[in-house]
């Protein structure tokens, strides 16, 4: 397992501010996600974590600052183009397509691609990561349990063959045993060469798998450092991580 920064930054966020109308949700955030790393963005409810992810994936646009991915500016690109560039987003609250089967959900994950063989290979790959989904391949996604839906949300994002995977609260509302399973899978996904930016409220679990961590509070970046160091710093844990 690697620690600290690994290689070139894949994603660079420079001093972005994001507004909902007149209200700033993210204020002057800068961060970088190195190639091949798991970087986590943690903080309490309303800190601006999800807003940051949505801005990276092009659903929102920063009022100021810039985001570059593989050296290309993406701050103004619409969401559907960002997916094609190699950034997939597994949204908060799963948001699977309930009336579609597991298979159809996966098919939609690959919406921007047209390489049939590559899609078939990645379908096999994600079904290997989540054998449970293979068992339910023709079941309507809305009839599955919360844990299975979360697996599907991650698997669906993987179908875009991303180089950067954005995961928003993958452990939300899951039983502890499923949380472990999801986090194990996140490590496996990284091992297959995908860089991961993980937003979590379950900070301690996130720090265990991540290489590097950013801590947000009310829209500002409060703290950053190698995940292990943050997790071991008692003061940090008490102040920000609810330890």
């Amino acid at each position, binding site marked *: 397992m690697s620690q600290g920064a690994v290689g070139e930054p894949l994603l660079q966020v420079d001093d972005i501010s994001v507004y909902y109308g007149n209200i700033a949700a993210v204020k002057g955030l800068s961060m970088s996600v190195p190639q091949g790393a798991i970087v986590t963005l943690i903080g309490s409810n309303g800190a601006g974590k999800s807003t940051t992810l949505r801005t990276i994936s092009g*659903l929102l646009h920063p009022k100021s600052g810039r985001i570059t991915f593989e050296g290309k500016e993406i701050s103004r690109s619409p969401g559907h183009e960002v997916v094609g560039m190699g950034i997939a987003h597994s949204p908060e609250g799963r948001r699977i397509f309930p009336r579609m089967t597991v298979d159809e959900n996966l098919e939609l994950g690959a919406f921007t691609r047209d390489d049939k063989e590559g899609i078939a290979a990645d379908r096999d790959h994600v079904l290997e990561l989540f054998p449970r989904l293979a068992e339910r391949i023709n079941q309507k996604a809305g009839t599955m349990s919360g844990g299975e839906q979360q697996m599907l949300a991650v698997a669906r994002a993987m179908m875009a063959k991303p180089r950067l995977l954005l995961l928003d609260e993958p452990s939300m509302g899951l039983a502890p045993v499923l949380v472990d399973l999801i986090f194990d899978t996140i490590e496996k996904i990284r091992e297959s060469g995908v860089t991961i930016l993980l937003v979590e409220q379950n900070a301690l679990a996130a720090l265990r798998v991540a290489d590097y961590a950013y801590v947000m509070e009310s829209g500002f970046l409060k703290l950053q450092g190698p995940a292990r160091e943050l997790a071991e710093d008692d003061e940090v844990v008490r102040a920000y991580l609810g330890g």
Partner: protein
Amino acid sequence: MASTTIDAAATPPTPTAPPSHEVVDRTNRRWALGFAIAALGLWAFYKFALESMPGGVQDAFQTWLPLTAVNEAIVWVICAIGLNIVVGYAGLLDLGFVAFWAIGGYCAGWFMSFFLGQYDITFHFLSAAPPTQSGIHINWWIVLAIAGAVCAFFGILIGAPTLRLKSDYLAIVTLGFGEIIPQVFVNGEDIAGFNLSNGTKGITPLDPITALPVGPEAVSRPLGPFDLETKYLLFALIVAFCVFVSLRIREGRLGRAWLAIREDELAASMMGVPLMRSKLAAYAVGAFMGGLGGVVFAIHVNGVFADRFNFSISIILLAMVVLGGMGNVWGVMIGALGLAWINSTFLPKLGETVNDALDTEINFPSYNFLIFGSILVLMMLFRREGLFPETRTRELVQEPERTELEDMHADLEGDVR
């Protein structure tokens, strides 16, 4: 690369159950066959069999299911299938679909009659109209295509500014559009000196249509007002076209995009579905079919009359889609046939029968909205998915989308007591 880490031998066994779209394909083929048989059977029945039936049977059919009512119902079917693309497939509420019906109708009025002869325009193209007549006379198949294209353009025009709106607001804007367009035609007699629509006097008669523009007499003769059987066949062909287009698009990339948008717009956009383009495409395709319906209706009644295009048409169309089963083109077709028949034939005839028997003067047709309204309310209470829901909805509607409070089993009745 993600896939290179997989050992080929470790690939999990591919699931054996057939992919769901194959199941859908098979179901659709069965339905298509059924409908083809029913449609052709009905034609053969009216054309050949009915004459040799006993007088009582003939009378019963003339009263309760005259072919002209069937032809009118087909107009509703075409428009309902179009609306189903917008509402059923893409999940965009549209309360102004009558606008496309009207625009399609006027395309027939402009391009298939003497009407534009008033501006000394004379143009004939493969039309059955007498060559000496002034005005634009284009073959009706081509007018269908023109009307479809014009409506698709207007579909995009209305769609573009409404794309950022959600449900209720979208519905209100489309409602406005559905009011504006017919009003333009009602008052279109003198638009800065230009007579667009002939106002409430309407444009009539239209050119007679022919099955084919050229060929032997049997297929190229102009169809008179009583040639209902042949018109029925031609109209049914247009329905078949709309069904075919609906089903093909549905299983393709665009259909997937619509489905995703209907299920969860935000998630769809995260999957890379271009929301704007996909929604506009839904408006355009739906409007195209609305335009076809408009032309067919104009031909059916041999004219276009501005005061016929009112709000109730939009609502009835929506009721047809909801009743039949949003998203299932076969269900929508049955819903449209059923409601159209109730409206055009069943209520008036029932009224006559009852009034004759009881010596009363109840105006049954005027109760149609009471009946449609009741049907909608009952549907929402007991069968939200429609009579023939699409396959994908069927399994999930055991838990229909209730409000969040209901989901929590909150005690709502406590309020009342």
